[in-house]
């Protein structure tokens, strides 16, 4: 195993692999550091291929000395070629990474399974999180499966589906009067007062490593190749930067060849601190007060904002924002062309891809991957009223009259 230490992304100071997330010297974020110098591509590839059918097949690249055993796994979600979507958008090749196909129906299962494995290794009995919904689902479920007590903190105005799909696991569900940034501030304060593993606070360096597995899977599922472009939703910026890190690690080890794909970040206009910074040419994000239907992306104060801006710049990508109407249209477009029903965050991502295609940003020979992070059944309000049903009596005459379709024979 290659894991070495925690390292500050700003000043490079190193720390032991325990429950901490902030550099005491400069307050910069800590990240897991590895030494892959002993890795040889072919044997590493064989180890991955012989591994389990979940994210732990990539445990050589995760922060553990040996492969953890977890009660609820995650990953190995479908990568689906979406020719009808590509045709509709006028681009050559689009693939959909459908991360709704995880145990609690979002990519958060990946980060939580890693965070909980580390929390258990460090001896924690209680796990907790600040969540916009999907993370709450995942923490509650994985804690239940592992037999750990959990506290999940969410904004009180969260979608009912996400509240119900969290409470069912028997967690301590805390509805906070305020937005996600208030919830996050509260959890940051609490993490200093409680001996709990807050997956996205004091466990954040480990938690975020789970997102690298989205990148590993895309590369493995494309036959050990990198795509040319990846479109990813941006809330805190952790997912997009970690997918890039995953690709960079595999380039370093030689598991894939070529160069880093272009990274396009997708935000909702009603909460677009990173897109606004991108448009203004700034390298930092000014916080905003969220007001969007894409609640899972409603982080007004994104922790990895500056790193997301840097990634878009150095990869030749961009950060875009789309309106709530475009988000609803994006959900419909994906559903009607691929059969995949995504939540509002996926509407943001699909609408952003449509925007890039319309703007002519996508080259004629590009292979594009659209990262769909969550399930449409969790945000049903977004599609309510978007179509009409055909209401009939149970007779052929009634149906024929209502549908306006004559029988063939």
């Amino acid at each position, binding site marked *: 195993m290659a894991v070495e230490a925690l390292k500050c992304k*700003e000043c490079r100071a190193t720390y032991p692999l325990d429950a901490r*997330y*902030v550099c*005491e*010297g*400069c*307050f*910069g*974020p800590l990240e897991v550091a590895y030494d892959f110098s002993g890795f040889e591509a072919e044997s590493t590839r064989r180890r991955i291929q012989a591994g389990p059918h979940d994210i732990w097949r990539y445990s050589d690249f995760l922060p553990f000395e040996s492969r953890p055993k977890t009660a609820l796994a995650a990953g190995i979600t479908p990568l689906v070629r979406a020719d009808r979507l590509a045709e509709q958008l006028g681009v050559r090749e689009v693939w959909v990474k459908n991360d709704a196909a995880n145990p609690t129906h979002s990519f958060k299962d990946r980060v939580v399974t890693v965070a909980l494995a580390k929390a258990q290794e460090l001896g924690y009995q209680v796990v907790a999180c*600040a969540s916009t919904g999907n993370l709450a689902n995942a923490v509650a479920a994985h804690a239940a499966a592992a037999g750990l007590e959990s506290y999940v903190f969410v904004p009180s105005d969260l979608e009912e589906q996400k509240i119900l799909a969290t409470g069912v696991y028997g967690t301590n569900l805390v509805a906070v009067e305020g937005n*996600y*940034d*208030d919830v*996050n*501030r509260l*959890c*940051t*304060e609490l*993490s*200093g007062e409680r001996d709990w593993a*807050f997956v*996205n*606070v004091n466990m*954040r360096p480990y938690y*975020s490593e789970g997102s690298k597995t989205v990148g590993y899977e895309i590369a493995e599922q494309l036959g050990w190749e990198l795509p040319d472009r990846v479109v990813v939703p941006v*809330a*805190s*910026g*952790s*997912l997009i930067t970690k997918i890039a890190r995953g690709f960079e690690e595999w380039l370093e080890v030689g598991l894939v060849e070529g160069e880093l794909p272009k990274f396009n970040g997708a935000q909702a206009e009603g909460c677009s601190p990173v897109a606004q910074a991108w448009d203004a040419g700034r390298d*930092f994000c*000014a*916080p905003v*007060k969220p007001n969007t239907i894409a609640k899972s992306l409603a*982080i007004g*104060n*994104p*922790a*990895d904002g*500056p790193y997301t801006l840097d990634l878009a710049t150095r990869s030749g990508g961009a950060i875009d924002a789309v309106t709530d109407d475009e988000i609803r249209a994006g959900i419909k477009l994906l559903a009607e062309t691929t059969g995949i029903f995504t939540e509002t965050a996926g509407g943001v991502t699909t609408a952003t891809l449509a925007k890039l295609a319309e703007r002519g940003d996508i080259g004629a020979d590009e292979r594009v991957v659209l990262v769909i992070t969550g399930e449409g059944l969790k945000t049903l309000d977004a599609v309510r009223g978007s179509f009409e049903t055909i209401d009939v009596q149970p007779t052929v005459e009634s149906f024929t009259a209502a549908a306006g379709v004559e029988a063939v024979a």
Partner: protein
Amino acid sequence: MSVTVKIPTQLRSVTGGEAETAVEEASTVGEVLDGLYDRFDGLRDRIAEDGGLRRFVNVYVGGEDIRFLDGLDTQVNDGDEVTILPAVAGG
């Protein structure tokens, strides 16, 4: 006139373990922080640079991020609570 300041765990090594402290005679957040810098050796280097705050430090007055107020010029009143926190959590 007194303002309560909540200190995050990451800074308690320079505050002698204090989790909460009071600052008198300050009318802005900047003055509150100056009061802390005078009292605690090494604190300024941890959280400030170029006359402002480091980019991964958040400061709140009554729970509101000072970037939504007037930044370091944000007024503080008697009994206000100022909270210093790392910015890298969440998501």
